[in-house]
Every structure is written in C-alpha cells, then in structure tokens.
C-alpha cells in the first residue's frame, strides 16, 4: 500500500551538508565564508604565494608606489609590501586564532562559574574581570614584554589576558539571565550536577552570542597588536605582522600611503569575513532564530 507519499521522510542529509545548504542561501554568510577561506589559504601557502622574501631589504627600491614589479609597492626599507602582507596573514591568524580561542574558553569557564556559582564566587570573578580590564594595557604589555621578551607569545598572552574579562562578563550576564529560566530549574530538579547543567544546557544558549563576539574580536586582537607596535612594544622586527606594517604605514604616511592601506585592507577583509561567517553560523545553529513552522 505504500505509495510515494508515505515513506518515512526523516532527512538523510548529513549535518555538514545541511549547514552548507543553509549557508549557501545566506549571501552574507557565503561572503564571510569565502573571505575566511581565502585568508586561511593565503596564510597556509604564504611562503609559496609571496613573490619576494618579506624581510629582504633593498634600500634603493624603497617607498615605491605599486608597480608591476611590486604590486603593493615597497616599504621604507625596500621590502615588498605584498609579500609582507601575505606572510603577515600567518601571524595575524595565529595571534587571532590562539588568543581568541584561549580568551573565549577562559572567559566561558570563568563566566559560567561566575553566573552559575555561589554569590561569593561571582564577586571574586567580577573582581578579577574588572581589575584586569581597568589595567592600562600599555603598562601590562610593557611589564610582560620586559619580563618575557618581545616575542609573539608575549603578545598573545597580553591579548588573552586583556580579552578574557570581556568574554567572561558576557557569559556571566547570559548565564545570570538564563539561570532562573524554567528549563534550568527543571534540570536541577532532576538532580543534575552543575557541570552537566553548564555543559549541556547553559553552553548552547551562551555559545551563540559568544560566536558573534569572538568573530568581531578578530580585528580587536590584531588592532591590539598594531597598537603595541605603535607604542613600540610589538612583535620582534622584522616580523611582518599586520600591526607592524600598519605602524610603518603610519610612520611613513607622508612618503607613501600605500603601506598603511596594504596593512589596513586585509585586516578589514578578515574582519568582515569572520564576522559574517560567525553570524550566519550562529543563525544556523541557534534554535531560537530558526524560522520553520
């Protein structure tokens, strides 16, 4: 008797292809996806793509405007700006990926504890968050750089510690507002442990906004690195980080504006990419925002 209308129609789509299907028809998400993939690929194959050695100094060809030989011109030491931007993407991604994931997970754990834990724990967490955040980043960066040396890891540590409070505070606010929602009371009434409640129930609700903040944090992280270079405590020269390129761009702005543009544009594209990808992924995974029947 089974005719076509009655076979069991449970969707066979695998999880991944369903996400891809959704992503395809969200144009902004697609734009974000394309940009992110480009940046990641450029970072991975940086050394093949870069036409010149990013640190090869060539004084006689310096401060040149873009030309066929140097597509984005050269910097104040005659190094090819395009190669520096390409290799710089490795540093930018490394700083962004590591520090954001560390800061997010740190913030997540501390935030959940602060939001869900007893009042005294909450107060201690607020204490930590606000103390770290009220600290002038300059002083903090300087102290760390002098103690641990001006390496990329120091920059990452500075970025992680200064970003954890932001994540922590958002997660705490979210947890606090969810704490007295019925589904949490229901779960607690079944005697579920704190870890289970936090991990299984609180996390999915909190991860949504966190994804957005994390994706919007990419530029903040790289700007902090740029800021540190501007204040002279950035990565160890001649590392071609986008921050140091922007800083050189600023110092030699009157000679050529191309260095600053070459440092700024990839940063903007990466940010737009991560943010829109983050947002469309959030829309896909966040049950509340789905518009089915």
């Amino acid at each position, binding site marked *: *008797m089974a*005719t*076509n*209308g*009655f076979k069991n*129609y449970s*969707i066979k789509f695998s999880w991944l292809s369903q996400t891809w*299907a*959704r992503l395809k*028809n969200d144009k902004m998400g697609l734009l974000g996806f394309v940009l992110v993939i480009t940046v990641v690929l450029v970072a991975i194959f940086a050394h093949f793509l870069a036409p010149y050695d990013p640190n090869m100094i060539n004084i006689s060809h310096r401060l040149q405007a873009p030309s066929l030989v140097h597509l984005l011109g050269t910097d104040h030491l005659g190094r090819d700006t395009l190669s520096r931007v390409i290799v710089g993407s490795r540093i930018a991604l490394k700083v962004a990926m590591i520090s954001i994931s560390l800061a997010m997970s740190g913030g997540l754990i501390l935030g959940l504890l602060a939001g869900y834990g007893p009042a005294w724990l909450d107060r201690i967490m607020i204490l930590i968050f606000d103390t770290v955040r009220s600290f002038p980043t300059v002083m903090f960066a300087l102290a760390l750089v002098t103690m641990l040396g001006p390496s990329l890891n120091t920059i990452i540590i500075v970025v992680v510690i200064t970003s954890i409070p932001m994540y922590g505070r958002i997660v705490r606010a979210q947890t606090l507002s969810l704490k007295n929602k*019925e589904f949490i009371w229901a779960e607690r009434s079944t005697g579920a442990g704190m870890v289970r409640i936090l991990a299984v129930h609180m996390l999915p609700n909190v991860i949504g906004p966190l994804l957005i903040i994390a994706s919007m944090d990419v530029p903040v992280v790289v700007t902090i690195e740029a800021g540190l270079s501007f204040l002279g405590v950035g990565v160890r020269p001649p590392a071609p980080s986008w921050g140091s390129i922007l800083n050189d761009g600023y110092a030699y702005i009157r000679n050529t504006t191309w260095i600053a543009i070459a440092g700024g544009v990839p940063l903007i594209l990466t940010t737009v990419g991560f943010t829109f990808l983050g947002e469309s992924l959030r829309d896909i995974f966040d049950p509340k925002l789905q*518009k*089915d*029947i």
Partner: protein
Amino acid sequence: MSLDNANILEIRDLSIDYITNRGRLKALRNASLSVRKNRIVGVVGESGCGKSTLIFAIMNLLAENAEINHGTIDFEGQDLLKLSQNEMRKLRGGRISMVFQDPMTSLNPVFSVGEQMVDIQHREKLSKKEKQLRAVNMLAKVGIPDPEKRLKNFPDQFSGGMRQRISIAMALMAEPSLLIADEPTTALDATLEIQIVNRLRKLQADFKCSILFVSHHLGLIADICDDVVVMYAGEVVEEGSVRDIFHRAGHPYTQALLECDPARISEEVTELPTIPGEIPDLANLPEGCIFRNRCSQASEICEKEAPHRLEIESGHFVSCHKHNLEANND
C-alpha cells in the same frame, strides 16, 4: 460574497504554504469555516494540523516565509486578505483581539502591566488617567485582586494564571466583536484552566463577542464551545455544533479522536488507545484523502480522489467519501 448576517467571520478555501529550505510545506489547504455572532467556536486538532496558521492568517501575523495561495477571510463584510498593512492594523486589538498560549512570554518583561494596557488603548481618545481607570476595571473583571496597586507591577511579578487573566483583560478591553484564543489554558494546570474558562464564558456573555477557541483538549471544547471545527494535517475535515460532533461524529478522524479521549473511556484499560500511523509529509502530499493511510474505513476512491465538503445535516459538514457514497445511494 454576501455574508450571512448571522456569521461574523467566514473563511472560504484558504490555502497557505510555508517556503522552507525543505520545499513548500502546504500547511493549510482549502480550509473553510464560519463563526456566528455571539457564539464560541472551537478549533480542535493535533499539533501541526494548521490551526495556528489559520488564526495567524486572520490576524495577518504570519511568519515571513508564509504565502497565502488563495481563499478569503470575510470579517464583518471585509475580506481581511485585501486590506493594506495599515487598514489591518486598525482592526487588530480593536474589532479582533487575541489571547496567546504561553502567558510567561506574551507580556513585555520590562514594562509595567499598566503601561502596556494604556498603550494598547491607542485608539481611544481618552486621557491617560481614564485609560488607567478602564484598565483597572478590566483587571477587576478578570479577577485580579487589588488592581490599582498591581497596575504598577511588572509581568514577572504575576503567576502564570494571573498573567493569562491580564492578557484576557487586555484583549477584551476594546470590546472586540471577535476574540481569538490560541490555546489560552494549555500552559496552565487543570484547576486554573477551569477558572479561566469559566471566567471567559462569563465575559463572553457580558461582551456579546464571538470567540474562536483553539485547543487540542476535547473535554474543554465540549464544555465551552457552541460549535466545533475539526482539523487534520492542514484540512478542515468536519465542522458542526458541539452536539453534532460529539454525538454524531461524521468523519472517521473525529470518531478516532473521540475514542482516544481519556475522559470518555468508561472501562478500565491498561493502554490508552492511539491512532496508528503518522501525519503525512506536508512537503509532498499523497493523492486522495489526507487521512487515508490511518483511516479504518478507507476504500479505493479514497486513494484516488480528495473528498469534498458535504452538508450531511443542517450546519454539519464533513469531508469524507463515506458520506458521498451514502448521499449517492439515498
């Protein structure tokens, strides 16, 4: 399309699809029903049968991906579907108002009840003081103790039952001619349900408005409603007075529903009866009758042709081939 002066609302052949990334879901197909003045019409059916789509179509509050294919909704001489946004907005909360299902989320948490009740009287040419007074009277009518003080409180400071009473007060304050109640008591416990339902029936009598009462609770429908509309998988399968439906159910689905109602089972059973099979996929519908795969009295014709609506006795309509055959034989 003259409106029978007795009916306040007449829906004719209303079809609505939802465009989703799994294709077009035909949520409502050729639904027709009518609501007479000063009567309570119950709309009953399992969840997903399209009753919410139906009532939101009336209020023009459908989701963005909803598409009305065809059909008319006549309300007091106007086809609501032809109205512009602004014209429809004039009706909402004035001639038609609505009470929602979940009291916990249907009121804005950051504004006091009083402020919200004043704002919804935006059509009245009254001073703020007078509007507050009307709100207080209304709250008293729905049984909120000490309404003057409670006006300043916020929704979170009321229990679920209280909030639903406030919603009802808000809905009836403009003395609408049609009140749509979307499963108003589902979120409440039994004792509260009875209080709310009785309160609603008394208010209906006072305000002489018609109520479209949506529910999946048969017992409740039997108590409160004058007429009943039974829906299954996006179609209206049967429509008639309470007595017609509960005593002379014409459609096999209605009969099956009644058999499953625990309140009506007399002898002791270890297992509650259910209707075998599942609701077909609304994205690719089978030919013939929609209930065929779960109908014990299905025959070949059911597989080929969809039954059309037949008035088996005055005011009692059924969409089932069984009756068509009998009509032909008589």
